[in-house]
């Protein structure tokens, strides 16, 4: 893919929903907005991180806040471009390209349309390769990018310049500001050089999500029928490893909001053997999967769930008793396998008392159905 236009957005959103590992909210509003704008201004150029000049200046952009708020307070055309322009005015730097925070969920659609509006390229990559709830979990700060200066803007054109010591403080600050500014803001942040993007960004995730979405959307049938194609797609990508971890029926779900997070569990029962059960631990996203007490996949590896009969990605908020699902474990890219990356994304970073073991290592001796 050399460009990304209105015709790609539906596929991108479906792929993004799969990679969102249960989080990311309903991308309908972001999908409509991106389609409309790209339809009006034409497609954005998509640039591979490797093709960026080392001294190019790249800014990450997306929305931060409560997705529920955008159901009523719909976005404007101007917030994203306003935040970028304000960023340039405040820092005095010219932005050469934009890049998404996270490919998982609605935030994947914002950089493409704002790039098209500004007439600059959008980097084909992101800072997560999935969805994760907090800023310090992005690969950008993990590999040396500073989150600030950051410019956040609301629908009214109100803006604030944030300066924080580190990614953890940035996360706290931006969350509080988002609530104070009406529940949702657009943030231009993590300004970095092309060289730093090459080192820190997970490459080719936008084009990958679009291909993945096209596969799932045009198939719309039983997951078994496209599994070979799905596996081939992931195995040829930077994710590398993909395994069907479980197939079964959701028999129980629990959930509550703790500290702003949608926290819960889900139990899935195997079709073949009623005694064989998978338990999923959820904190906005699916974070840990275990079978009969034994962990079979955990964050930062991806746990992706689709409805068995349609192969449509299943959001954690929509999970309920009786759904027939297929659970996939997908290896995170190399970016998340270093000690510094794991320290902020391993299960303990989410409060689960267990070690991260890479998907390909824990599963060697488990016989999957």
């Amino acid at each position, binding site marked *: 893919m050399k460009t990304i236009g209105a015709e790609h957005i539906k596929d991108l959103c479906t792929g993004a929903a799969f990679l969102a590992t249960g989080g990311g909210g309903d991308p309908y509003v972001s999908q409509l907005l991106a389609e409309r704008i790209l339809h009006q201004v034409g497609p954005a150029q998509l640039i591979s991180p490797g093709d960026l000049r080392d001294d190019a200046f790249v800014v990450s952009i997306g929305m931060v*806040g409560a997705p529920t708020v955008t159901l009523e307070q719909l976005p404007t055309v101007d917030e994203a471009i306003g935040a970028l322009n304000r960023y340039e005015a405040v820092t005095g730097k010219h932005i050469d390209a934009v890049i998404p925070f996270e490919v998982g969920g609605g935030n994947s659609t914002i950089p493409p349309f704002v790039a098209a509006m500004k007439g600059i390229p959008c980097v084909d990559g992101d800072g997560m390769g999935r969805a994760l709830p907090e800023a310090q979990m992005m690969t950008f700060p993990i590999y040396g990018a500073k989150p600030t200066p950051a410019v956040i803007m609301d629908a009214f054109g109100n803006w604030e310049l944030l300066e924080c010591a580190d990614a953890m403080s940035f996360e706290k600050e931006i969350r509080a500001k988002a609530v104070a500014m009406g529940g949702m803001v657009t943030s231009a942040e993590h300004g970095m050089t092309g060289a730093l993007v090459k080192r820190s960004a997970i490459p080719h995730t936008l084009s990958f999500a679009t291909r993945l979405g096209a596969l799932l959307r045009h198939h719309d049938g039983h997951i078994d029928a496209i599994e070979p194609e799905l596996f081939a797609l992931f195995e040829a990508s930077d994710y590398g490893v993909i395994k069907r971890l479980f197939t079964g*029926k959701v028999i129980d779900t629990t959930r509550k909001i703790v500290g702003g997070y949608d926290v819960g569990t889900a139990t899935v029962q195997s079709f073949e053997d009623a005694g064989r059960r998978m338990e999923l631990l959820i904190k906005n996203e699916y974070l840990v999967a275990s079978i009969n007490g034994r962990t079979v996949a955990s964050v930062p590896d991806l746990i992706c769930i689709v409805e068995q009969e349609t192969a449509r990605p299943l959001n954690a908020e929509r999970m309920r008793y009786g759904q027939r699902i297929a659970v996939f474990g997908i290896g995170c890219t190399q970016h998340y396998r270093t000690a510094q990356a794991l320290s902020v994304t391993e299960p303990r970073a989410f409060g689960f008392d267990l070690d991260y073991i890479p998907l390909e290592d824990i599963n060697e001796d488990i016989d999957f159905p």
Partner: protein
Amino acid sequence: MRIGIDVGGTHTDAVLMNGMEILCAHKALTSSDVRQGIIEALDRVMTEGRVDVTAIEAVMIGTTHFTNAVIERKQLSPTAIIRACLPTGSGLPPLCDWPTDIASALGNHGHMIGGGYMFDGRQIAPIDETALDEAIADIIHSGVKSIAVSAAFSPADNAHELEIAARIRRRIPDANISMSHEIGRLGILERENAALLNASLGELATKVVSNMEAALAERGLRCPFYISQNDGTLMSAQFIARYPALTFSSGPTNSLRGAAVLSGMQDALVVDIGGTTLDVGVLANGFPRESNSHITVGGVRTNFRMPDILPIGLGGGSLIADEGASVGPQSVGHRLVEEALVFGGSTLTATDIAVANGSVSVGQPARVQTLDRAVVERATQRIHRMIDEAIDKMRPSEAPVPVILVGGGAILVSRELATASSVIVPEHAGVANAIGAAIAQVGGEVEQLVSFSKHSRDRVLADMTREAQAKAVAAGAEPKTLRVLDIEETSVSYMDDDAARIRVKVVGDLRHSP
């Protein structure tokens, strides 16, 4: 005594009821003339039930008229919309996600002005009166009389919508105005879409209501009449002219409510098997469980209250293939009576399997005696497994549930269903829709995004319940009979721990006119 009439696409059903007792029932083909169809239905049940018009206290009518108008894009009035949201929302103007054919049927009259609210109750902006007057002038110029009004977070605070509607009415006294907070829920795009559809049906509704009134008057019925809504409650004739869109999907709802009455069950699954499809719905507390996802009506995304229905491709006319291993989704449909083996045709259908395995005797059973027993057994097992699976997907938990079987395809069920604690096949199941209409109650509903850190949970729920009760009484409920049907509480992520979206719903019996 009450009369319930269900005007469907194919059949018009009528029942005469005394309390919960069914005195007589009648089924006929739907006529193209609404008035005539209702007169015939009234005549049949009143003659058969031998009742005098003065004994009839109320007539309840369920109709698919308005759904069909939207699906066929027929008889929709040109409709404008004014949305108060600016400066937010400019990226997604009204009608932006509509299919072009229906958007042009309404005329593409979208306006956005300053106004609306935020999640915490603050105004996005005061109403921009200059922009509002310009929008109204524009609407007057275009000659459009049907107007939808929406504002951000109007389900939490409707003041801006009320103010805009009042201003429109001052300039266009005969305007037909639909305010989004009266029609839909949180989610402004879907809610204003619902309001737009509602406004566009206003003229048609006035016509349909006067036809219904004429039919009743012609038979000397002076009792009030009501139309059933998609949530299983009623609205009066004056309401229907203002809220026709609330009848969408009232058919399946009435069928579920009717099944509840027929079986005497308040909590059960209802499996309605027709010729081509099987619909599973859930009765909770005597009312249908509602769907939480978006409902698309004629290609337009809305958030109406609709029953949660799972359809699967299995019915009396389903084709049997692969030596009985595969049943449906293809079906001979209404040609069952010509094409099935037992009716002299040459197609092996699910009905033939039911006859061959001895569960029912229809047509010419001899014609299926020679079928391979293994095929019959395999298909029988397959049919029961499909039904079990559909029930399992809809039941609230793993515990077996009572199952009420309705519809002509109920003959397919001859064995135990593993998911069912009991299976009830009630009498008169064929007219469940009309029964559901006849027994409907009156309801009121309130939805808000609230923060318990400002007010205690009890206080918030008490306030909201009072508001819902007031709505129900305004809609015609007897205050003494009101009960809280449902309180739905959904926590909101990435907000305070105490932020939640709450919906309170109350119902009560119809207040008898003095």
